[in-house]
């Protein structure tokens, strides 16, 4: 079986986000880019499945401008065999066209299993892998914290509300999205990093499609005004009273 892992490059969680001059986009100057942490779980799971002898090859695939190849190299350094760079410009807020371009690129790979992080920590859409599943016409198990793959079938434990789980049985090929708890992603070893430099990165250019949604403006949230700080446990009755009478939340 061939496993394709969808990977996204995102700003580090510590990043300060600034708007561009006219407020139509974000100023990404000086941002530290990382492999989306949820995609690390997906890469790790693919490598574990391969190490268990249930897959022959792990290909990582990412979409975006040239800078995203660095995130693909991170995944290659963890142990993936090959990478596909779906080359586009910067994201314009149209999730559908991203998913379509990735689905087309996946189709060329004859994948038995597509893994991805359940969400990307930049736009938090939780959407692209599900759209890819639809475009491929296969089943999906979204937000999965336990996975078993065996003989053309997968069993996935999908996290739903309040810690409950749906157990999903799925015929492969299919799409599974990883969340925290699925595994502990490995760190890239030094030899892994060296090897990653020589691993193949195939570049594909997707057909341009019409955007169905468009980012028109960006804004920053209003800073929360600092509130009142009380000293000591003896202030509890006062705070409780304020929560009812002033904040009206109890």
């Amino acid at each position, binding site marked *: 079986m061939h496993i394709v892992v969808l990977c996204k490059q995102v*700003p580090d*969680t510590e990043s*300060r*986000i600034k708007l561009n001059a006219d407020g139509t986009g974000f100023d990404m100057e000086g941002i530290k880019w990382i492999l989306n942490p949820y995609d690390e779980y997906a890469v790790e799971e693919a490598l574990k499945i391969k190490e268990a002898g249930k897959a022959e090859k792990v290909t990582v695939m990412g979409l975006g401008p040239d800078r995203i190849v660095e995130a693909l190299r991170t995944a290659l350094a963890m142990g993936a065999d090959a990478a596909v760079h779906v080359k586009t410009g910067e994201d314009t*807020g149209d*999730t*559908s066209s991203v*998913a379509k371009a990735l689905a087309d690129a996946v189709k060329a790979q004859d994948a038995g299993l597509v893994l991805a992080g359940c969400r990307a*920590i930049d736009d*938090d*859409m*939780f*959407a*692209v892998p*599900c*759209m890819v599943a639809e475009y491929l016409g*296969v*089943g999906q198990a*979204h*937000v999965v*914290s336990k996975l078993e793959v065996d003989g053309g079938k997968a069993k996935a434990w999908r996290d*739903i*509300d*309040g*810690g*409950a*789980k*749906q*157990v*999903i*049985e*799925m*015929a492969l090929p*299919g799409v599974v999205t990883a969340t*925290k*708890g699925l595994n502990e992603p490995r760190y890239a070893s030094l030899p892994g990093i060296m090897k990653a430099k020589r691993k193949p990165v195939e570049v594909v250019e997707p057909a341009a499609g019409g*955007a*169905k*949604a*468009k980012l*028109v403006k*960006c*804004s*920053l*949230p209003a800073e*929360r005004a*600092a*509130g*009142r*700080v*009380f*000293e*000591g*446990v003896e*202030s*509890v009755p006062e705070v*409780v009273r304020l*929560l*009812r009478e002033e904040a009206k*939340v109890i």
Partner: protein
Amino acid sequence: MSNVLIVCEVKNAEPKKSTLELLSKGKEIAGALGGSLSAVAIGSGLGGFADKVAPYGAAKVYVADGAAEYSTEGFTKIIADAVAKDGAGVVLFSAGSQGKDLAPRLAARLEAAFATDCVDIGVDGGKVTVKRPVFAGKAFAHIAMEGSPAVVGLRPNSFPVAEPAGGTAETVALPADFGDVKAKVVEVVAGESSRPDLTEAERIVSGGRAMKEAANFKILEELADVIGATVGASRAAVDSGYAPQSRQVGQTGKTVNPVLYMAFGISGAIQHLAGMRTSKVIVAVNKDPEAPIFQKADYGIVADLFEVVPKMTEEFKKLLAEG
């Protein structure tokens, strides 16, 4: 003119609160677009369901009665059928765990414009526009839905529920037929808590590393019981094994949007703030007066949480006993 279709979430044959939020906002959007408001509900025991959503403005309710369990593909098929029958130009979901699974699948099937987890939605020049947090709430993206239909997920607790009015709705029965399904739910494992999920909770009490051990979360549970809250945790508490992953609030956990968020022994790392910054009222309790959480809190108490939590539980009990 464009109709708006709401995708209901049904629990024990009743619409969830998030569904009432969708109806309330959906009615406004339908009005602005000069269309009608419809709803689609899938589940079992749904006889009379239309009467439960009609007071919130739904004129027509598509009901697929007889679906025993959830299915991404099955629900997508039925909702796509309802969209076609209704001629809906806007389809609204609640962006909880079900909506996150279903809405993108439907959007891809319909070749629709898509955005989710929106905290605002409006109509500008006949076009639907949405506002959604990005970079974990550090900024907002304003997106114009150029394509039709538009499939939009709304963040729970972002829109008020309108006062129910009179009115009746026409029921249109749809077959509860999932068709050929490749992924099937074979079992549902119950969670450790019967309280609302963090993403939908109106009140949350969260513990951080200062909780010191898993057993100490019991005092937060007691407080949560009194005020009807869901218990959350910081990443530090989860990574230390004090709380399960399903309770983590923050950039790599759940994004929450309650009216009241109480943080006990949480210092307020940027990644935690990212997950709870839209909370209406924030209370922070920490021994360290320099903890960054105090800069975001409406009410802060500098004290030992192990003294504050039981005292607070007692005070809330007294207050609620007064009525």
